[in-house]
């Protein structure tokens, strides 16, 4: 179980699940609250991320990370090549399910991963995932075409496809001193349903359909046992948004939000890490936000080993 403390001093359960070890045929079942094994980064805890914040695509399409309250079944096939198939159902809180659907199992996932080694120094994993969500009254804050804040509400079906890949290199497979990790994920989401524009005001309802995408690519290089540098590039594509009669009201600028992030971190021990991160964030139209962030991480208690 892991508990997260938020900036507003509230605590929330990040993950709390039971996992079987006795199912046949390479299967494993998780029940409870868990980070879904979709994409690459989704089921990694925030303290193992290579950057302080999640990629833009994760923030936009999964609200940071998809956690489900439900069941997830995975199976590793009895093949020499690593092939893992799985899927889950569960409630996923306010995003992407919406406030009207907090407790219902409104999300489903399917995912497949494969991977292997190239010599002793290289290993890789690649995967494809789908996330289905039924959204009821999912709110989002926006601005109208005149620039005033409005609150819109979406009800309908959301389908998200994710392609992910990671490549790790280290001399002779010894990652303690030198290593390079290349990682990237592509997201494409299609949503269809109805949108209520300016819910608390004019409340104009009409059909809504969108097809949007985003991706990120990053490289992290460990050049000394305790030191790493990383570079990440994020990009979102506004894509096609058709809100019928509401289209004219919505603010859909023709630009691609993007961000470039540079980080360097120092880990004096396995249980602590200091990180400096510089970012040029162009997620908002016409605005370049230069950011400097410093992070200190410390882990307490016995700590489980990390997955690939």
């Amino acid at each position, binding site marked *: 179980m892991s508990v997260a403390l938020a900036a507003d001093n509230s605590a929330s359960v990040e993950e709390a699940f039971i996992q079987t070890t006795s199912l046949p045929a390479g299967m494993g079942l998780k029940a409870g609250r868990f980070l879904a094994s979709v994409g690459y980064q989704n089921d990694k805890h925030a303290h193992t991320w290579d950057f302080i914040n999640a990629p833009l695509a994760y923030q936009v399409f999964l609200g940071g990370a998809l956690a489900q309250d439900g069941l997830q079944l995975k199976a590793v096939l009895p093949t020499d090549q690593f092939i893992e198939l799985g899927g889950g159902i569960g409630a996923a809180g306010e995003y992407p399910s919406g406030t009207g659907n907090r407790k219902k199992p409104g999300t489903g996932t399917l995912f497949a991963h*494969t991977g292997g080694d190239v010599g002793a120094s290289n290993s890789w994993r690649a995967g494809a995932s789908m996330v289905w969500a039924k959204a009821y009254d999912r709110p989002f804050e926006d601005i109208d075409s005149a620039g005033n804040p409005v609150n819109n509400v979406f009800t309908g079906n959301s389908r998200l496809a994710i392609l992910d890949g990671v490549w790790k290199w280290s001399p002779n497979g010894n990652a303690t001193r030198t290593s390079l990790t290349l990682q990237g994920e592509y997201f494409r989401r299609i949503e269809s349903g109805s949108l209520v524009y300016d819910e608390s005001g004019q409340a104009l309802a009409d059909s809504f359909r969108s097809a949007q995408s985003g991706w990120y690519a990053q490289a992290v290089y460990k050049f000394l046992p305790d030191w790493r540098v990383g570079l990440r590039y994020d990009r979102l594509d506004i894509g096609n948004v058709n809100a019928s009669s509401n289209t004219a009201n919505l603010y859909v600028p023709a630009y691609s939000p993007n961000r470039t992030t540079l980080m360097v971190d120092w880990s004096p021990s396995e249980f602590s890490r200091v990180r400096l991160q510089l970012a040029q964030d162009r997620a908002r139209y016409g605005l370049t936000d230069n950011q400097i962030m410093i992070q200190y991480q410390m882990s307490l208690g016995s700590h*489980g080993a990390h997955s*690939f």
Partner: protein
Amino acid sequence: MNKLLQLAAAWLLVLVAQSAQADLKVLACEPEWGALVKELAGDKASVYVATTGLQDPHHIEARPSLVAAARNTQLLVCTGAELEVGWLPVLIRQSGNTAIQPGRPGNFEAAAFVRKLEVPERLDRGDGDVHAAGNPHIQTDPRNLALVAEPLARRLAELDPANAAVYQARSADFLARWKAAIQRWDQAAAPLRGVPVVVQHKAFPYLQQWLGLVEVAVLEPKPGVEPTSAHLSAVLAGLQARPARMILRAAYNDGRGAEWLAERTKLPIVVLPFTVGGNEQAKDLFSLFDDTVQRLLKAAR
């Protein structure tokens, strides 16, 4: 689309058929246990070794290839004593393989059959990578391999009763050859008794105990922590009072700390293979110790 599905199904069937061999499937965490299984099982087992002789067995990632190997294996042969604590639990969990869960016959821990050295009196993270069960690098004393061989042969027979007689016969044959070899190494290594050594990592207490080498300094300030310049200077100063004859390190260790000290003390560095595959000479268990003893003798001359 249907054609594509048929093709995918056919491909999956081929992959499944390929992996369904008659041999007992063994996944060895370290090369020495892979080599021991080959001695005991011959062609009755197919062995997949998770690490090479040039990898640090403390720090391996639960890579996809290893998850697949763990999924398909019938027997896991590892050192245990927490050596693989950073990756083996993840591997076992992700594999979904019920046969290799801790406590099952498919999970064999070699260190359980050996009396361990350096069992700590207290456990503190401030002390570095200290293993509660004691020092896990048991394979540097050949007498430990003899202690592990018998229970391992019994385990192979338990999991593959059809070939039980083969494992028993091969085990008896191996132990006879192994005991003769130990006698040979003991005689050859007699001049090493009492020789003071500096070690890089606390990797050789069993070797030291076997051959009577005396450890006078350790380059790592704490187990698993790379040598720092301050600590190296302290080691250098300490060697004035307690001189050593050589510096020992395993093939997978970073060589810089040892080289720094060797430059200033003119001590020879002995890069020991540490396990099978640690260098070109260490091809199997016998040549591993032939080479180890030879290198030590050469440095002590």
